[in-house]
């Protein structure tokens, strides 16, 4: 039996979830995880079949469900279901030139934060007070993005974050330690390792993806200067689709110039 490399990400993120909850009780409860995963999987099953007639690809739905259950913090259950359903639906409803343009989980979380702040906050604290959870997440995450050949995106974002933190520190007068504090927390680590590296919603060229990561960090800095607490999610929400649309337009122009069909994007395999 051959190992399917597409299973690496779901396995690793499941590992993170179980480890974090077992060690720190970071989840609202297993019922929230079950609800989020069931919601994403059910939505994927229904929409994929109804709207494309193709068989559902449940790995993506599973990852979205697990991600929602990790990154969303609510004492209520319904936000986990709503965020999960919106995440998957965004893939089928918000499309341009045959592809979805928002990272599904990012869309679901931003929708909850925009529309239901009275009931929802994202993960915002350390898991425990030791160094090892951070090392585990970075280790596991780098394995995953390395396998997916997306490590350059993470590294570009992290480097840009540190530089822009210095800029912010100069502008706000806050200590540099305070400005870099968020990236030492698990929310940012998951964001940098798993969300902005999503192959389906990032541009295809290596240097293009690096540039987009830097722009995300830059826009995040602007949000932070405006004291928007969940700046990274919002930065990706705005920059990600714009970058993809630019790429789609550029490819369309390029293919027209060459009067030949564009090669399929790697993300649309």
């Amino acid at each position, binding site marked *: 039996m051959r190992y399917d490399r597409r299973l690496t990400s779901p396995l690793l993120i499941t590992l993170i979830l179980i480890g974090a909850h077992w060690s720190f009780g970071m989840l609202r409860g297993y019922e929230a995880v079950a609800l989020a995963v069931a919601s994403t999987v059910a939505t994927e099953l229904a929409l994929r079949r*109804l709207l494309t007639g193709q068989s559902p690809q449940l790995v993506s739905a599973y990852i979205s469900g697990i991600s929602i259950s990790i990154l969303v913090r609510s004492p209520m259950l319904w936000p986990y279901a709503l965020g999960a359903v919106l995440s998957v639906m965004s893939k089928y409803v918000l499309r341009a030139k045959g592809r979805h343009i928002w990272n599904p989980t990012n869309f679901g979380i931003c929708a909850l934060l925009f529309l239901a702040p009275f009931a929802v906050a994202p993960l915002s604290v350390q898991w425990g007070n030791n160094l090892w959870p951070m090392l585990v997440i970075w280790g596991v995450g780098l394995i995953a993005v390395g396998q997916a050949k997306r490590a350059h995106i993470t590294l570009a974002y992290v480097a840009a974050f540190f530089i822009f933190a210095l800029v912010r520190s100069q502008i706000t007068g806050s200590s540099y*330690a305070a400005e870099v504090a968020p990236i030492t*927390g698990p929310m940012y680590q998951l964001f940098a390792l798993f969300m902005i590296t999503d192959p389906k919603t990032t541009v295809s060229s290596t240097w293009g993806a690096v540039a987009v990561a830097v722009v995300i960090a830059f826009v995040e800095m602007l949000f932070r200067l405006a004291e928007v*607490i969940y700046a990274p999610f919002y930065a990706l929400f705005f920059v990600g689709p714009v970058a993809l649309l630019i790429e789609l337009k550029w490819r369309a122009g390029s293919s027209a110039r060459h009067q030949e069909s564009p090669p399929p994007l790697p993300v649309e395999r």
Partner: protein
Amino acid sequence: MSSHVTGAEPQSSVPRRLLRALAGVVFVALLAAPLGMRHFSAEDDAGAVASASVALERYGFALEEVSQAAGIDFTHRPPELDAKLRAIMPVVAAYGASVAVGDFDRDGWQDLYVTTSAVDGRNALYRNAGDGRFEDVAARLGVADLNARDMGVSMGAVWGDYDNDGYEDLFVYKWGRPELLHNDGGRGFTRVSDGLGLPSWINANTAVWFDFDSDGWLDLFVGCFYPASVDLWHLPNTRVMPESFEYAQDGGRNYLLRNRGDGSFEEVGESMGFRTTRWTLAAAAADVDHDGDPDLFVANDFGVNELYVNESGRRFREVGRESGLARTPKSGMNASFGDAFNRGEWTLYVSNISEPGVLIHGNDLWVPTHEAGAAPDYRNIAGALGVELAGFAFGAQFGDLNNDGWLDLYVTNGYVSGETRDSYWYDYAMVTSGHRNIIADADNWPAMRGRSLSGYQQDRVWLNRGGHRFRDVTRAVGVANAEDGRAVAFVDLWNRGVLDAVVANQRGPLLVHRTTATPQHGWVEFELEGTRSNRSAIGAEVRLYAAGQVQLRQVEGGNGFAAQNQRRLHYGLGPAPAIDSVVVRWPSGVAQTVLAPAVNTLHTLTEPE
């Protein structure tokens, strides 16, 4: 977080296009769903101001703030700590407003002891004159001057007759030297702190009198926030903040003082099972496992709470995680026991932080699911009952405000109301998401510069609608407090058979809410005095049977946050007041039954010898 699928576009067809359009409609509807939920669930009357007569008619009670008319003019002042903390002083010096109810002179009228926290600030003991007026007698009786640079400042107080002489003594817990003040027959107080057996300096934020070993002498639990080694006026460095905001274990240790019965105490906390060093803010005792001895719930900020099961006074076993109470770390600020559903068992209300879009811990309403004698097991139903989202919540109390026979809930809110309403949350969230080396050092925290952190928040008054749901009636019944509420205590200040609400605000005035309850509802009150048990009768459980229901109350030695309700037990009886019986279980284990006691009356019960 990644999306590994999309696939080719579907074959164009009318059904597919229709389905896609339908999916779009559903998508938009789901996006609008939270707004709709918010709108349609807003049945509460929190913001609707009603006249007292309308409130009385609609809800059966109304509150009126009468502190000035009662002669009470007291404003809490915060401590000014080491200048190294100046940039974030309001966040650190955010505690110390408290209220403890006790009848110190045994004249039958409930008195109030309230604390301030400024160096050289004077605490107040408001003696209830019985004519609607109160007089501050603290200085005259020797319980005012407890705040000084070399002895620390007050955080709260609890009344309890530790020597069984019939007069309530006073324990004042502090960030500094704790003080036990012996009540000399209601005519004055004598400092007897040296017999406590406590360290000379602790940073305590809660204390509870209870007789854990059922020997007839009141013992004392003291819960601490900062470690005892921290003197907040003389800091060697700025590493005084918690190491984590949900998993911190570098706070102060807690103490259990066993009353030897000769006027002295023995510190037995560690040997009895209190070994954690979390950041304790509140505690309350109740017999949660129905085995006849008091157990203890401890609410911790920056981490999980703790439930200590009392094993016949020999030791305490921490069962927070197993019981379900402490599986998820939150920001425990309050611990209140009450029989919210008239089931004759203890429901527990715990306050936490709820700041929209930033941090939604939600308050907890823990309902026991275990049978008598079984291991404690709890389920949180705060969301289902509508008492989950209050704000940056602190002290809370159960009490039957409209005498309808169901316990209502009062919750204070608000952390720091700054000079401006600009929010400090961005900076707060930025730092607290970081690694412990960043969080723990106050030097890394951006300056507050007069900004607020969950400031100007309204208190909440939740009306219990027959145990099915609570309704927010705050403004409608006349409560408008938007100061930084800390402690709330219920007390029948004017001996009318209704519970008045006294609220202590941080950096704000002490508020006295006089309650008017509908005369159509009956009431009954009981004053208990122990003989074999501790004389304060703290820990006595009293079950009242009426109209096919049971109402459970207990004599408390401190609960909520920095608060103590009156020891006298109050019951609302609803529109057809008649009592079948009242069953008292004294702390000694003695049971006493009173058949059909008169209603609308205060009864005095003495423990049978």
